[in-house]
């Protein structure tokens, strides 16, 4: 069953202005992991805004879980390239932020604070941040901040996780570590993921389906399923089949750039 559906969606930020994306149709199954790749300025982030209801399409329809998206959706987790942690809160308090907003946690916060705190601690421990709960974000390294940011996006058990180049600002080693972390989290307790990225290896490593977008106005050029077995390991990224997947995508991107 389709969880997220786009039907010929176009969006212009200004009336009569240039289209940011044009005629996008796609559908994401429940608990599917999709990646959207493309050159910068191809409207990848617009796609995310449409799904979460932060923008409205100029034409076409967006459906989430069978209902048409209108207005900001609840229960979506989001993480961006910058961790956007609140510097006046400790790591633990940052992760607990969604619980103070999303129902039903919000109304249970007062009585169940201890339980929720344990939930957050467990999740932080799960991503390797045990012992860092009471530190402030600026005391954490970039990779750790990003882990915490992903924890914040997942703590309220959203059905949809949206990641906008979440590993873009990290060094190569940390980035690959976090790929594995994300894959593990997803396999343990599945949720639907939309990952926007520049990195083709990242897309192939993590996603079930990769969409390649063209430069503005953004259109979907290719949809490609990655049928590598899971769990994928970093070792797999050096195999022939992995390389050929990346290569195919690379060729598509190359074709766009020649225009």
């Amino acid at each position: 069953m389709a969880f997220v559906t786009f039907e010929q969606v176009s969006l212009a930020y200004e009336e009569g202005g240039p289209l940011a994306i044009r005629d996008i149709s796609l559908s994401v199954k429940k608990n599917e992991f999709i990646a959207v790749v493309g050159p910068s300025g191809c409207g990848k982030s617009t796609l995310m805004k449409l799904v979460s209801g932060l923008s409205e399409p100029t034409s076409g329809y967006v459906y989430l879980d069978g209902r048409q998206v209108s207005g900001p959706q609840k229960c979506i987790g989001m993480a961006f390239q910058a961790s956007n942690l609140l510097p006046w809160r400790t790591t633990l308090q940052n992760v607990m932020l969604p619980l103070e907003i999303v129902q039903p946690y919000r109304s249970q916060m007062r009585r169940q604070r201890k339980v929720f705190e344990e939930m957050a601690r467990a999740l932080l421990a799960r991503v390797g941040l045990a012992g860092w709960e009471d530190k402030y974000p600026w005391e954490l390294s970039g990779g750790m901040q990003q882990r915490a940011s992903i924890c914040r996006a997942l703590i309220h058990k959203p059905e949809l996780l949206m990641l906008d180049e979440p590993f873009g600002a990290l060094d190569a080693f940390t980035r690959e570590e976090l790929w594995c972390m994300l894959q593990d989290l997803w396999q343990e307790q599945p949720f639907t993921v939309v990952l926007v990225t520049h990195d083709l290896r990242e897309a192939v490593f993590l996603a079930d389906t990769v969409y390649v977008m063209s430069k503005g106005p953004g259109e979907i050029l290719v949809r490609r399923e990655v049928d590598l077995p899971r769990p994928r390991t970093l070792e797999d990224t050096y195999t022939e089949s992995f390389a050929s997947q990346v290569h195919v995508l690379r060729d598509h991107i190359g074709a766009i750039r020649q225009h």
Partner: protein
Amino acid sequence: MAFNRRKFMIRNASWMLMLVLLLLWEALCVGLQVPEYLFPAPSAVWSAGVARWEPILMHAWQTFFTTLVGFGIAVVVGVVLGVAVGTYPLVYKALYPLLVGFNSIPKVAFVPVLVVWFGIGTVPAILTAFLISFFPVLVNVATGLATLEPELEDVMRSLGASKLDILRKVGLPRALPYFFASLKVAITLAFVGSVISETVASNMGIGYLMMAASSSMDMALVFAGLIVIGVMGVVMYELFAWMEKRFTRWANRGSNSAAI
């Protein structure tokens, strides 16, 4: 050793500079035999201050009280308007040019108007202190709210947070350092406002005391009054600087190590 001396110098620099200036002042007055009714030496100011401590204290208390009340109103009005201006673009567009225009009017020009409306005394002094000091609070609170990162707002909105939620959880805490910084500016301005009003239209307060003293050529007392205002200003400034450090430590991380 050398390092310790340097540290000592930095910590006590302001006291030492003040001491040097006082000595220089004293030396100038004594050396050039400046008459006391023109420019009294620090020693003369000191003895005037000690001899007349009771009236000085009474007037200082009046000025202090007036300033704090005006400042208090300024903080409340500044925060409320600042939140409105920083949150709603419509309010910003409508109100801001008006406020900037109002702020460019010298507040001394208002005092006669206030006197006509409220008579001389405490009320115009409080209002002048308020009028002169609410603007920096407003601008800083509004700036703190308006510079919220759009991604952070997206994160909050995608959780279903209301405008009030975003303001409470993110906007206001984030604007806190701006707010405290503005308090330091506003309190010194509030002193300017109340003293101006007292010099023009009051029979109470340090401003009035100085006015009366200067008309009887008692320059030592005028200077004593000036110094009392300065001391009150510094004390209040330091109080808010301390509060700023205490409550928004996260925003000033590492600045201590940079300063020393």
